[in-house]
């Protein structure tokens, strides 16, 4: 019998959703433990960093790294895991492009801390205590990780072998990746795996008309319901949500998620990232949506319609801020 794979799962600036998603492989987990040993997973078991440091270099066969690089700890561990892993996989939107936490790149670190610790309505912090990187205690000095100015993606700090996008990656894709790794059938280094080769529209239950549709009003999914009675001529599917005026990222987002959000009548949020070869997902969807605005060649008319798009940067770069061309706000 061949030796079992040594697998690590680590979380940096993330929510733990990636781990939960991994558990969604359900009964396959039994097959997983047949072929693999988990040598690191802070989410489900206590591992000390010193234990990892003690591993020989390249000890971990595959490390699934989720979460972005928000502080000095994440950077340090990313570097450590790179050394200790044969294959390092950026797992989930945050490790790929910073994810939701990277939206904080639109604010300064100080503004963010103030909001988190002082001005949030539910806070109770009358002394205005703020987190410090070091704190003297009678027992000695405590050190906490330093918060970075902005959120980075994993490959900003270390070399990454494979990318598995998604917020979180869907279970089916996770399992296909594990299978591929177990079988040693991996594409060239640097590839995005566990994805389709088209856009979300490929798996979408909605359909666009071919001609003459322009957007004259933008809608928000928590304020208005999509009209499912409108049907596209082509195949009698309900009419495309973008055409109905909902800002849907689907057309600019890589397929692989089985259009789960759309199947629940929610416009795509773009968590699988840009299509192959597209550099900036946000700019690309802005271009597509902008083209559909019913301007009729009139700037004022167009401006009124465009004004209805609330927070374009937050919407278009919901997951991709850390990989966008501009990446941060100029402050």
């Amino acid at each position: 019998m061949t030796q079992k794979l040594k697998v690590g799962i680590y979380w940096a600036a993330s929510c733990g959703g990636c781990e939960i998603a991994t558990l969604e492989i359900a009964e396959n987990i039994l097959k997983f433990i047949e072929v693999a040993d988990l040598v690191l997973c802070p989410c489900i078991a206590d591992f000390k960093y010193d234990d990892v440091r003690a591993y020989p270099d390249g000890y971990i066969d595959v490390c699934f790294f989720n979460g972005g690089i928000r502080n000095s700890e994440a950077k340090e561990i990313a570097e450590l895991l790179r050394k200790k892993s044969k294959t390092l996989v950026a797992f989930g939107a945050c490790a790929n492009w910073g994810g939701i936490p990277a939206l904080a790149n639109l604010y300064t670190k100080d503004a963010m801390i103030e909001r988190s610790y002082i001005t949030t309505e539910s806070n109770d912090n009358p002394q205005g205590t703020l987190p410090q990187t070091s704190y003297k205690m009678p027992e000695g000095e405590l050190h906490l990780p330093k918060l970075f100015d902005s959120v980075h993606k994993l490959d900003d700090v270390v070399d990454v072998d494979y990318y598995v996008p998604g917020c979180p990656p869907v279970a089916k894709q996770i399992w296909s990746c594990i299978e591929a790794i177990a079988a040693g059938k991996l594409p060239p280094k640097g590839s995005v795996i566990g994805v389709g080769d088209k856009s979300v529209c490929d798996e979408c239950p909605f359909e666009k008309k071919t001609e003459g549709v322009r957007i004259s009003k933008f809608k928000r999914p928590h304020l208005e319901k999509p009209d499912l009675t409108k049907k596209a001529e082509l195949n009698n599917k309900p009419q495309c949500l973008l055409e109905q005026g909902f800002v849907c990222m689907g057309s600019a987002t890589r397929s692989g998620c089985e259009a789960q959000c759309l199947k629940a009548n929610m416009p795509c949020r773009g968590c699988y990232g840009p299509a192959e070869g597209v550099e900036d997902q946000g700019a690309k969807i802005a271009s597509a949506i902008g083209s559909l605005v019913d301007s009729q060649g009139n700037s004022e008319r167009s401006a009124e319609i465009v004004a209805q798009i609330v927070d374009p940067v937050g919407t278009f770069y919901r997951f991709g801020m850390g990989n966008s061309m501009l990446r941060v706000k100029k402050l």
Partner: protein
Amino acid sequence: MTQNFEPKILGIFCNWCSYTGADLAGTSRMKYAPNMRIVRVMCSGRVDPQFILKAYKEGADGVLVAGCHPGDCHYIEGNFKTIGRMQILEKMLAQFGIEKERFRLEWISAAEGDRVMHVVNEMTTQVKKLGPLNWKEVSRSKDIGHCEEPKATKQSPLNK
């Protein structure tokens, strides 16, 4: 420092109207500020917002997109699409903290050489007043010491 600052402005001009208009400014020997460099596209409808972001990332202090007047587009209504795209982009640029004077969409016909002169001079003055944008510095991380290029450009033969 800003006194000696000479902004770098990228112009993306449509072939039929604006580029020809800029040619006319040349043949008419109009004089304008040397700060703008024009890249030619066939129609302002070809202008992908990525081009503009790319320019800022590459160090441009301002970007001017110019096309035919609405209704006069060589391709009928390519520029109609430009309007919506650029308006969304303007909103995004504001969110990224880029001053509105640093981006401009202008309609310049083939006959408006004087308009090329006027717009370039005006924009150069405005951007000069704002000072350098210097996005490399804006996006440089003090924490990790560098900022990686996005993946897609990594294989560029120019980066070899």
